[in-house]
């Protein structure tokens, strides 16, 4: 009863507001849509989706996208179907066909129309057909991409029409490729199909490869041979890209290693403190990011994309401050006894871990990615994720700034003077205790900002630092203790090496091999990659 009333009301509303659109088909659409409420399983819902898509009505796009996003609701009493938007404990409803607001309802009164992957895929495919005519070139491009992945013979006329009216060259090419994929599954003639193979062969990526491989398996004669040649062509070009990809992955892993190690290169490499609490400094940076993001989420959600920019100085200060406290409270009593710093910093690392566990709990904390770090872009056949690219760039920036500070500023000069000859530096009027303290704070602070970056790719938990400490020591020692450039080259070498070994040996064996290679390498160069020579060695 209510449904009918609602329907009548909706029709009246629609008719009143958009008289031109109010067509007799609306009723059919509603009737089809109403079947969603009675669908017993995903297959039945899928049938409804197909029927909806078949109507070709513009409203269908809205309905389907709401369904795919899980925003289609059924009222428990009366079975009305609505597009809903969650708003706390209530849901704001909208009429699916007309799009007009239709009041609110409590969560408990509504049932969400469940979707699963298969259904979502069906919706996406259906939407592909619907969005081919979209005004937005990006939507058309993604429609072409979907149709390439899942060619449908029935869509061929629509594609031809779309190509004919397309003005954007990039979209046109994509549509042509989608058409080629469709041609391959159609019953068109050999000439058409040969041309299609050519088009896909030129695309040359894994999607094209998938279509061609499938086609090769299904065809015979000249077509099969041509397809096989194209497959081979694509595979060999992809193999070349594979090398590039490994290099990129290696650099990206290398920069993660470098970021993790760079603070240690100062506290351990330059100052000689066997800093087992280094990992925890990285962890503190990551937790600072979490806290900053929480604050931003609570007080200024609009600034979320800037959260990392706020987190960087905060992490530097937090980790640097803790580092300063550790140096003043403990390490300064231990200079000249490097091995004992190991014991003390190990104790500190246990305390810091447990402190974080007590304050934040033992579970992972969610550190979100700003929108500019999400997703990936294509460079040829290379998928480069933004987060990795930013980390590489960030890592380089941190490294260069640090090198500059150490080599070009008077503060860096003092720092080097103190670490090389404490007594001499002291007698030249350098306040060595403060230089020590700030050097350690600098190393810790850099570890902290590394934590900001690493929180983007790893899970933020109290064990966060433990995962990096061993690798960091390996990198610093491999590169040569006390040499920043050694740390840089060391990190990159280990990263690339790891990534080239991984495809052949697997991740586990690859890692073991890298460790064995480090052991062997140290035999050859007992003081790392960039060792100091001459009399300085004895010091």
């Amino acid at each position, binding site marked *: 009863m209510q449904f009918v009333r609602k329907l009548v009301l909706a029709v009246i509303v629609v008719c009143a507001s958009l008289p031109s659109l109010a067509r007799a088909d609306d009723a059919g659409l509603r009737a089809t849509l109403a079947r969603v409420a009675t669908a017993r399983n995903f297959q039945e819902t899928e049938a409804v989706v197909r029927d909806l898509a078949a109507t070709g009505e513009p409203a269908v796009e809205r309905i389907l996208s709401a369904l795919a996003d899980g925003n289609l609701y059924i009222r428990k009493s009366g079975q009305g179907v609505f597009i809903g938007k969650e708003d706390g404990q209530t849901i704001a409803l909208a009429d699916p066909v007309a799009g007009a607001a239709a009041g609110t309802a409590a969560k408990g009164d509504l049932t969400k129309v469940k979707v699963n992957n298969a259904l979502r895929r069906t919706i996406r495919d259906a939407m592909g057909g619907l969005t081919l005519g979209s005004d937005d070139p990006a939507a058309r491009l993604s429609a072409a991409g979907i149709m390439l992945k899942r060619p449908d013979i029935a869509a061929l006329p629509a594609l031809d029409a779309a190509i004919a009216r397309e003005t954007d060259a990039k979209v046109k090419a994509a549509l042509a490729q989608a058409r080629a994929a469709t041609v391959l599954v159609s019953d068109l003639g050999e000439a058409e199909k040969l041309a299609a193979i050519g088009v896909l062969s030129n695309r040359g990526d894994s999607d094209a490869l998938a279509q061609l491989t499938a086609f090769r398996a299904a065809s015979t004669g000249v077509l099969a041979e041509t397809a096989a040649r194209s497959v081979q062509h694509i595979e060999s070009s992809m193999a070349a890209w594979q090398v590039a990809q490994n290099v990129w992955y290696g650099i990206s892993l290398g920069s993660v290693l470098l970021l993790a190690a760079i603070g240690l290169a100062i506290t*351990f490499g330059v100052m000689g403190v*066997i800093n*087992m609490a280094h990992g925890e400094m990285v962890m503190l940076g990551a937790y600072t990011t979490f806290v900053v993001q929480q604050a931003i989420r609570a007080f200024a959600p609009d600034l979320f994309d800037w959260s990392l920019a706020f987190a960087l100085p905060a992490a530097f200060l937090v980790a640097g401050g803790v580092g300063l406290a550790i140096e003043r409270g*403990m390490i300064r*009593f*231990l200079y000249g*006894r*490097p*091995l*004992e*710093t*190991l*014991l*003390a910093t*190990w*104790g*500190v*690392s*246990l*305390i810091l*871990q*447990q*402190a974080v566990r*007590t304050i934040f709990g033992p579970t992972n904390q969610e550190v979100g990615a700003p929108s500019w770090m999400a997703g990936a872009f294509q460079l040829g056949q290379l998928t480069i994720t933004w987060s990795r690219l930013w980390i590489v760039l960030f890592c380089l920036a941190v490294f260069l700034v640090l090198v500059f500070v150490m080599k070009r500023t008077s503060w860096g000069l003092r720092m080097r003077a103190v670490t090389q000859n404490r007594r001499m530096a002291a007698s030249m009027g350098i306040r060595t205790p403060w230089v020590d303290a700030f050097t350690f704070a600098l190393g810790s602070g850099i570890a902290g900002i590394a934590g900001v970056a690493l929180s983007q790719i790893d899970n933020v938990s109290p064990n966060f630092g*433990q995962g990096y400490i*061993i690798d960091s*020591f*390996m990198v610093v*020692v491999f590169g040569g*203790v006390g040499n920043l450039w050694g740390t840089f080259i060391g990190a990159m070498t280990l990263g690339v090496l790891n990534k080239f070994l991984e495809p052949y040996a697997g991740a*586990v*064996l690859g*890692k*073991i091999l890298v*460790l*064995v290679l*480090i*052991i062997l390498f*140290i*035999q*050859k160069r*007992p*003081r*790392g990659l960039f060792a100091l020579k001459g009399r300085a060695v*004895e010091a």
Partner: protein
Amino acid sequence: MIARRLFSSDRRIAVTIATLLAAAVIVPVLNLAVPADSVFHMPSYVVALVGKYLCYALLALALDLVWGYCGILSLGHGAFFALGGYAMGMYLMRQIGPRGVYSHPTLPDFMVFLNWKELPFTWWGFSSFPYAMLMVGLVPGILAFVFGWFAFRSRVTGVYLSIITQALTYALMLAFFRNDMGFGGNNGLTDFKDILGFNIQSQTTRAVLFSLSVLALMAGYLVARAIVTSKAGKILIAVRDAEARTRFLGYRVENYKLFVWTVSAVMAGIAGALYVPQVGIINPSEFSPANSIETIVWVAVGGRGTLVGAALGAGVVNFAKSWFTGAFPQGWLFALGGLFVFVTLFLPKGIVGTFTEWWRTRAAKREPPASAAAEQPAQ
């Protein structure tokens, strides 16, 4: 000659031996013969716990031999300990024989359910106790020898050596984690039944294992002491303090290091072998770098360069750990971490080292004429 050194009438040794022997006898008696309701009864739980500490003490002793006396800071001694443990574990696995859950005549359970068809060669011979015991010493010994042979000849020293020992144990951990290695993957070796025909869970076997651990610790102590008090021991300390100078005196430093390193690894292996039947499991986490670092902490807390201190440190830290984890499960890491910081700052020579120093100054005060001349640096 060795015997003479081992059993020289030195009072320190005599008392050590006496104490250890007494413990080896009294503890099992308190455990087995004294009725359970007596105040003097020692529960099996405690016997197992102390037995575990003793194995750790032997490991700490081994580490102190190389670190305290020769200056080699090994961040990978856990590897030798674990290898010895695995050798023992493999023997115990083979002892299960057809009593595994699948009743397979030769293959251990984990191989059966991973569908292995035959015993890998690494497992051959481990059904024989003498062979397994040989391997307990040989496997860590040979690994240490080969590793040391290359590292010491290449003159890898200081942190570089420390880090490659860490790489060694880390690599071994990853390797043993792999099921394909055939050592039970992350679950390791467990579910042991008996050792030399004696039920491994019986009180008597446990008491015997306890006594054996005491004896092993005693033997380890005597061997270590024999080494450090010999002329070779002086050379080791010389290497620790001024390696280059020792070379210029004509001593082949790498050979001294290699010798003590290998001996230490074998001792660690024996400690591991005694540990496994007492805790009932060996798995790759024993290789984890953190375990090796913990061992260093024991030695440092007890007193680096004092053999008794190393053993004592292992006992103290592990007792603290056992106690804290039961008494303050939420915050025990604060206490343990705090303990390490405290020891470094206020007892830089460890418990024994600090006590020794205090004793010496007290003694010096008490009898000034004799020792003051020797203690006071000439002006």
